[in-house]
């Protein structure tokens, strides 16, 4: 393929349109290049085009790493399809690389024969150095053999498109992502209108920016249309969806909505005690916008104050929630133990990231399960739930709130960086669909005892300050069952330790059994939890389609396990547990059931690929 410039592209736009089922593309550039925004817009356009889709934003830990370096590469991946899909895709059909660093960091994920679009204006000696590349990779003939390479002078073309606007060149250059977006819209036959609307709304008060971005996008689109180099483009038909109204949702927004919905349903004020930390901060940001729902967000001085204030809030009759990520959760253990002892409702949301220690803050991982189980002194059992997709974050937030309030217990809720920032289309549920639940405050002084128990749930009464006649005192010292008075009596302690465990274990009766996706017996059962759902499901479905004897169970409840879990596992020859850690769930399964479950572990700060699961499962079949 020849080097192109825009003069060469006067041909008529009579181009072949190829229909395809699924496409995975990735925009990659410097942190300052606006790749996340570009990806978001492409996602929105694809949603409106009726595709099923999943996204995977991936950005650096630095606010603005040095321009042009590998550390500064920011990428956004989207998989869109006319069929049901579960993941943002494994290998890429198309890669847009805005500079050499983005090229270098991402080229390995492009399929053979895939489309590579590079912004040649950035392929300069200086940038090769920054990207630690010896020579211009575009000069490498092998590249052209492996991929469909389109060299586009994006910066220059964008500048030209805006030439007559008299903008600072710096501003013109900042529109080049819209050029790339326009080009991809043409490539995948998406309408530009909704994005134009969005640009207007977003930059409404700065008309020159509206115009510049719009023009840049159109220039990109028309470039695709006109350049001879691009002979064909693609269309991904609408997916068949259950009827209804949809939106795109990320895990962090979904979880925020879930807590608002739960608090409404319960008739409680939502109190959110949090200290900022990546990747959990966005939940705080989202919720701080909903004071109109009575939400009180409290940006605490640290994570310990955050959890303590949330416990105080619940004690006073609110739905107290605290949210953080790994290192911040580690700090909360002591206070969570107090909530266990005083039996106060609390949800602790952990948006997990790669550890240990500071680790890789913007990268995903599932390595806090065992800390959730055991990261407190003494015997301090808590229910643990995990979300499996971005939209599932909404449902688990509601369910965690239900359990916390019904059982007067802290609940650990696990999300992760992948779910938090990834998005998918969501058939918007109705408020009326929220499961039944209620918060009851004890008000009757007759026979009141703070540690009196509901015989069914083993829960104690929630009795909030301000209630006349029910003054009482609680605390973290062991207490007599019933009266709640301090007690150092040996038998009472034994009784209470077992009772607290029993209360949590008893939740198994109140949660749905695990559902087997596929045959309910066979060779391999793949057991997963959390954000690995999509990739496992895609792999299992693919193998099932080929007739393999493999089924899937995905756990929402990690403590207690659903009542039928053991029985389900015993019907398979092998149990495989893929996790983005060194094998944490598998440890619990093995110890609980003495089943020789097999761990499949990946700890790279990024999600599994579907193909990895397929390979692993095939090994066991």
């Amino acid at each position, binding site marked *: 393929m020849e080097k192109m410039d825009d003069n060469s592209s006067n041909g008529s736009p009579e181009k072949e349109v190829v229909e395809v089922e699924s496409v995975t593309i990735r925009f990659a550039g410097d942190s300052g290049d606006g790749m996340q925004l570009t990806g978001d817009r492409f996602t*929105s356009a694809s*949603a*409106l085009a*009726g595709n099923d889709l999943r996204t995977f934003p991936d950005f650096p830990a630095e606010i603005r790493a040095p321009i042009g370096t590998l550390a500064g590469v920011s990428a956004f991946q989207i998989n869109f399809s006319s069929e049901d899909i579960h993941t943002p895709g494994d290998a890429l059909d198309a890669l847009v690389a805005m500079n050499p660093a983005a090229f270098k960091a991402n080229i390995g994920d492009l399929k053979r024969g895939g489309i590579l679009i590079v912004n040649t204006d950035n392929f300069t000696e200086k940038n090769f150095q920054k990207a630690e590349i010896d020579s211009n990779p575009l000069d490498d003939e092998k590249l052209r053999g492996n991929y469909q390479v389109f060299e586009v002078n994006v910066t220059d073309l964008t500048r030209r498109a805006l030439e007559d606007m008299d903008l600072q060149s710096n501003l013109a250059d900042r529109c080049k992502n819209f050029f790339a977006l326009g080009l991809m819209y043409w490539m995948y036959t998406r309408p530009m209108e909704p994005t134009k609307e969005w640009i207007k709304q977003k930059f409404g008060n700065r008309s020159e920016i509206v115009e510049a971005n719009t023009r840049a996008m159109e220039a990109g689109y028309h470039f695709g249309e006109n350049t001879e180099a691009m002979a064909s483009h693609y269309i991904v038909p609408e997916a068949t*969806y259950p*009827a*209804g*109204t*949809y*939106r*795109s949702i990320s895990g962090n927004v979904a979880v925020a*909505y879930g807590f*608002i*919905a739960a608090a409404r349903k319960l008739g409680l*004020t939502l*109190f959110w005690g949090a200290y900022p930390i990546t990747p959990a901060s966005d939940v705080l940001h989202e919720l701080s916008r*909903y*004071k*109109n*729902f009575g939400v*009180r967000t*409290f940006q*605490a*001085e640290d994570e*310990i*104050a*955050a959890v*303590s*204030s*949330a*416990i*105080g*809030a619940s*004690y*006073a*009759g*609110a739905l*107290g929630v605290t949210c953080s990520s790994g290192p911040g959760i580690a700090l909360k253990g002591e*206070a969570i133990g*107090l909530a266990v002892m*005083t039996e106060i409702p609390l949800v602790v949301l952990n948006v997990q990231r790669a550890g240990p220690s500071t680790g890789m803050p913007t990268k995903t991982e599932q390595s806090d399960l065992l800390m959730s189980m055991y990261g407190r002194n003494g015997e301090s059992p808590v229910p643990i739930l995990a979300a499996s997709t971005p939209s599932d974050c909404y449902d688990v937030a509601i369910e965690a709130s239900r359990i916390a309030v019904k059982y007067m217990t802290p609940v650990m809720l696990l999300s992760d960086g992948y779910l938090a920032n990834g998005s998918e289309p969501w058939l*918007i*549920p*109705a*408020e009326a669909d*929220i499961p039944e639940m209620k918060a009851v405050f004890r008000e009757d002084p007759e026979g009141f005892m703070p540690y009196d128990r509901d015989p069914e749930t083993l829960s104690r009464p929630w009795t909030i*300050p*301000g*209630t*006349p*006649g*029910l*003054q*009482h*005192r*609680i*605390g*973290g010292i062991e207490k007599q069952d019933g009266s709640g*008075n*301090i007690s150092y009596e040996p038998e009472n302690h034994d009784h209470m330790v077992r009772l607290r465990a029993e209360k949590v274990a008893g939740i198994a009766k109140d949660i749905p059994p695990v559902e087997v996706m596929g045959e309910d017996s066979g060779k391999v059962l793949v057991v997963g939890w959390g954000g690995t759902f999509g990739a496992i499901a895609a792999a299992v479905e693919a193998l099932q389609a080929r007739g393999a004897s493999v089924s899937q169970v995905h756990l929402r409840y990690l403590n207690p396990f659903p009542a039928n879990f053991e029985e389900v596992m015993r019907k398979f020859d092998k149990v495989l547990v893929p996790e983005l850690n060194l094998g944490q769930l598998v440890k619990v399964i093995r110890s609980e059931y003495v089943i020789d479950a097999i761990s499949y572990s990946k700890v790279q700060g990024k999600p599994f690929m579907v193909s990895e699961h397929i390979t692993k499962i095939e090994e066991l079949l």
Partner: protein
Amino acid sequence: MATETKTNGVGLKLSRKDFQSDQTVRWCPGCGDYSILAGVQKVLPELGLPREKYVFVGGIGCAARFPYYMNTYGFHTIHGRAPAFATGIKVVNPELSVWVITGDGDALSIGGNHLIHAMRRNIGINILLFNNRVYGLTKGQYSPTSQVGTKTKSSPVGSIDYPLHPISLAIGAECTFIARTVDRDQKHMAKILEMAARHEGTSFVEILQNCIVFNDGAWHQYTEKGLKEQNVLYLEEGQPLVYGSEDDRRGILINDFKSEIVSADSPGIAVHREDDEDGAYAHLLSRIEVNGGPMPIGIFRNFQRPPYEAMLEDQVTAAQLQKKMSVDDLLHSGDTWEHK
């Protein structure tokens, strides 16, 4: 704040006894905590709130067990974090009268950060710091208020940590009500506690408290007859800074940011004012005893600014008036599309 005492709508006048819980008090015989408990139990009936509106929040320590002994709502939490628990409680229900009971270790060692953050936010809670200059509950190590050279189990040849001075620190953290009183002076304590309770925003009271077992006599100069008359400087709004026994009255002269002890009839004795928003004067007062002068007790500083929870309520109310929303509205916000 309601001014009439009501329980279930029935007006009734409460007494000290009404605030005593059924729990056996488990402090050492002779501990200063007893008098503070009595003092608080005597003041609350004067405040006109029913019992159920009070919440006492303790951290961990001898002092922090205080909530068990009050017939109010009580929460004995974990070490050092009581101000954070109290913040959550107050934010959720600003109508409650929330009291934090803490010791010098609980408040200033492990809990120092929560203390200063509660203060700077001006959250509407009352913080009583029982300062006995020692860790009582863990059996007698030196604390952040122990003086240099204090010999304890953990400092057998004398501590080398310079102490924190709670009042100086509170000024640095911009607390809006700062006072000091003494376990042994019930009348003074009552007055200070009442003022503290009526203050909107954070009120902070350091109470000099005797730990009879591990640090007996730490404050004897300021509590024992014959000594206290010479060594206590009562701070009274609009009154000159004078102290001392009848036959040896002295006064504080302040000049160029230094205080000096002079005869009480010298000219230019400083006159006390509580409304010292800048805090430099109050800060100087907090150094008088450190420099070997008398121990000022009373209100160091008292000024108003809107408390945290009130500003939060305002924001919530404004938002609710401005934009009513259902959960359905919320879920449908942003871009949506239809599939048929």
